[in-house]
C-alpha cells in the first residue's frame, strides 16, 4: 500500500547510498509526508470516510498549486501511506519505518484516540509534530505535558458529554422531556469513558437514568437493547455508540417506533452513509460532531472534497482533519524550513487560517470544535460546540416516519 513514484524511489535510493550530489537536487523539491491509518480492520470504515480522503485532497491541492514555499523553494508533497490494519503494534512498527527507512519530513497524526496515544512516544522521539484530530480524551493535559509535539483539535470527553447535557437540560426546561433518560453504551474504552462521564454529569443535573446498559462491540441484534429502552418510558435516548451499532440502534429505533423527543447516538451519526441509509426517517436525530454547511469556507471545502475524492465529506471530523493539514502547511511555510522542532514551535506560537476558521493552540489544545449535531432535512448541522459560529436550533424528534 505504498504510493510513491519510481523517481522518488530512485531519489531515496541515491540519497541512501550516499551519492548526495545527484540526489540532493532531486530531493530538494519534495516534502515527504507519511500517513499511517487503517484501511482494513475495525476502524477502517471510519478512517476511509474521515481520514484518507482529506489527506488525498490536501496533497492534491497543494501539489496543484505548485507545492509549498519553504524558505524560497517551492516543494511538492510526496505522500507515503501505510495501512496499520487497526493494530497499534503494526502502527508503531510502520511509524519506525517511516522515520528510519522512508525518512519522511512530517507525518499525519493517526486515526483514533487509542492510536494517537499509543503512537505519541514514537513520533515524539523523532520530533514529528502530531496534530491529532480523531482523538478525544480528558487526559490531554497529562499527555501534552509528556509529549510536547502532540496537539489536540477535536475536543475533550467532557466537552462531548457536556453538549448533550446542555440539550437535555434545555429540553427539560422546555417541558419536552422529563427527568428520565435511557442511556446505552458500547462496551469498549471509548463508550465506557463517555458513559462514565455522562453518568456523573447527568446525575449532577438531577436526571434519572431509568435504563443504563452496555452491549459488546459488534452485537448482531440490538433489539433487546432498544426494547428495554422503550419500556423504560424515557423521552430522551442517549447512546455512546460506534459505527456498526450507531446504524443498528437507529434501525431498531425505527422498527420499535421508539417514542422519544431527544435521540442521540455518537460516532458515525455524522456520516453521509447514515443519512443515506435512513433518509428522512432519521430527521432530527442528534449525534456527535456537526458542521456549519452555510459557512462559505466549509461550503467551498465540501465542494472540493466531493470533486476530488468523489465522496461527500462527513459532517464532523472531516473538516477538522483537513484543517489540521492546513495548520501543518501554514506552519511549514511560516517557519520556512523542514526543521521539525522549528515547525513545532511555530504551531505553538501562531494562529492559523483554516476551513474551521482561525485556529490556535493553548497548551497544545485548540478549543474550537463542534460537539453535537443534528440531521435536519438531509444535512447534519452543528447545534452545540465550543467557540464555533452558526449553531442551528435543536429540533424535537417527532416519530420515525419517512
Amino acid at each position, binding site marked *: 500500500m505504498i504510493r510513491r513514484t519510481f523517481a522518488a524511489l530512485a531519489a531515496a535510493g541515491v540519497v541512501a547510498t550516499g551519492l548526495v550530489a545527484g540526489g540532493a537536487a532531486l530531493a530538494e523539491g519534495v516534502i515527504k509526508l507519511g500517513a499511517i491509518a487503517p484501511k482494513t480492520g475495525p476502524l*477502517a470504515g471510519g478512517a476511509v470516510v474521515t481520514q484518507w480522503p482529506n489527506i488525498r485532497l490536501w496533497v492534491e491541492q497543494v501539489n496543484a498549486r505548485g507545492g509549498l514555499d519553504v524558505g524560497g523553494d517551492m516543494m511538492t508533497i510526496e505522500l507515503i501511506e501505510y495501512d496499520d490494519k487497526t493494530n497499534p503494534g503494526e502502527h508503531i512498527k510502520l511509524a519506525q519505518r517511516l522515520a528510519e527507512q522512508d525518512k519522511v519530513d512530517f507525518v499525519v497524526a493517526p486515526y483514533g484516540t487509542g492510536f494517537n496515544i499509543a503512537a505519541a512516544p514514537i513520533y515524539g522521539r523523532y520530533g514529528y509534530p502530531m496534530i491529532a484530530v480523531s482523538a478525544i480524551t480528558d487526559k490531554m493535559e497529562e499527555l501534552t505535558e509528556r509529549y510536547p509535539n502532540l496537539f489536540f483539535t477535536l475536543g475533550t470527553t467532557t466537552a462531548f458529554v457536556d453538549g448533550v447535557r446542555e440539550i437535555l437540560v434545555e429540553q427539560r426546561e422546555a417541558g419536552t422531556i422529563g427527568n428520565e433518560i435511557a442511556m446505552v453504551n458500547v462496551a469498549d474504552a471509548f463508550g465506557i469513558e463517555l458513559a462514565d462521564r455522562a453518568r456523573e454529569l447527568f446525575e449532577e443535573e438531577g436526571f434519572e437514568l431509568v435504563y443504563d446498559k452496555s452491549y459488546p462491540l459488534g452485537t448482531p441484534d440490538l433489539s433487546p437493547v432498544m426494547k428495554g429502552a422503550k419500556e423504560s418510558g424515557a423521552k430522551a435516548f442517549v447512546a455512546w455508540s460506534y459505527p456498526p451499532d450507531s446504524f443498528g440502534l437507529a434501525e431498531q429505533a425505527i422498527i420499535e417506533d421508539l417514542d422519544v423527543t431527544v435521540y442521540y447516538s455518537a460516532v458515525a451519526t455524522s456520516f453521509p452513509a447514515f443519512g443515506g441509509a435512513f433518509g428522512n426517517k432519521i430527521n432530527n436525530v442528534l449525534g456527535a460532531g456537526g458542521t456549519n454547511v452555510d459557512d462559505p469556507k466549509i461550503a467551498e471545502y465540501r465542494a472540493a472534497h466531493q470533486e476530488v475524492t468523489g465522496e461527500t465529506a462527513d459532517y464532523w471530523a472531516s473538516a477538522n482533519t483537513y484543517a489540521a493539514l492546513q495548520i501543518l502547511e501554514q506552519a511549514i511555510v511560516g517557519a520556512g524550513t523542514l526543521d521539525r522542532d522549528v515547525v513545532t514551535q511555530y504551531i505553538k506560537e501562531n494562529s492559523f487560517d483554516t476551513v474551521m476558521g482561525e485556529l490556535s493552540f493553548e497548551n497544545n489544545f485548540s478549543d474550537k470544535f463542534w460537539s453535537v449535531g443534528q440531521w435536519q432535512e438531509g444535512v447534519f448541522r452543528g447545534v452545540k460546540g465550543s467557540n464555533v459560529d452558526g449553531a442551528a436550533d435543536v429540533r424535537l424528534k417527532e416519530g420515525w416516519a419517512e
Partner: protein
Amino acid sequence: MLDILVSGLLLSGTYALVAMGLNLQYGVARIMNLANGEILVLGALAAFWLYTTAQLSPLLTVVLVAPISFVGNWLIYRFLLTPLVRRSKSQGALEVDSILATFGMSFVIIGVMVSIEGGFFAYNYLSEPISVLGSTTSLNRLIAFLIALAIGTALYLWLNLSRSGVAVRAVSVSTEASGLVGINVARVSAMAFALGGAITAVGGALISTFITLDASIGVVFTLKALIIIIMGGVGDIRGAIIAAVILGVVETTVASVIDPGLTLAAAYLIFILVLLFRPQGLFGRKPA
C-alpha cells in the same frame, strides 16, 4: 417472554446462515475455511452494491449470488485447495495447510473488497416493523429467518433422503471408506465446498439487510460460525441448526433479562460447557 423467544429465534436464523456453509466445508471437504467470513461479507457487498447502484432488491441479489459463489468456491477448491488435499498425509496436516491457505485468501478478499468499498455497507432494505405473535420485529430479519429455515430443511432432506446426499454424508464420515465403495471423493468434496460457499454468500446478502457490515468484519462471522459448528458437531447440519437456536435464544434471553453486556460471556460459557461435557459437539460422533 414471547418477545424473547421471537427475537431469539430470528437471531438463530442469522446464526444458522453464518454457520451452515462452513459446516459443509469443514465437515465434508475438511477445509477449515478461515475465509468463510469474507465470503459472507462478499455476498453482503454484492447486495449493498447492487442495491445502491442499480436499486436491485437484495432478494434478487441472493438469486444471483448463489450460483456465482458456487462456481467461485468450486474454482477455489479445484485450483487452490486440491493440491493441498493431494499432498496432505493426514487430516491434521490438511487442516493446518487449509487454515494457512484460507487465512491468506481472506486477506486477498478483504483487499479486493476495500478497493470496491472501504466504508460501511450502509443501506436499508425492508426494515419495516412487523408483528409476529404479538412481538414487534423487522421484516428483513423475518425473511432471513425464513430463508435460513428453508435452506436448513432442504439441506437436511437432501443429505438424508437422496442418493447424492448419502454420498456427501459418507465422505464426511470417512474419505477412505467412501473411496473404497466407489464414491468420487474429490468431486463430492468440491461440491460440498462450493455449496457451503454459496450458502455463506447468500447468508451475507441477507444479513446485510439488517446488519451494517464493512470489508473487515468477516473474521467476526468466521469465529461465530466456528463456535456454532463445534458446538453442534462438525459435519452435522442438525447440530449446527440446533446450536444456532441455543445461541440465539440464550443471547437474547441474557440481553433482555440480565444485561446486554453479558451476551458474549453467555455465548462463550455455553461453548465451554459443551466442550467440557460433550467435546465432540451435540450431534458429533465420538472418535473411534
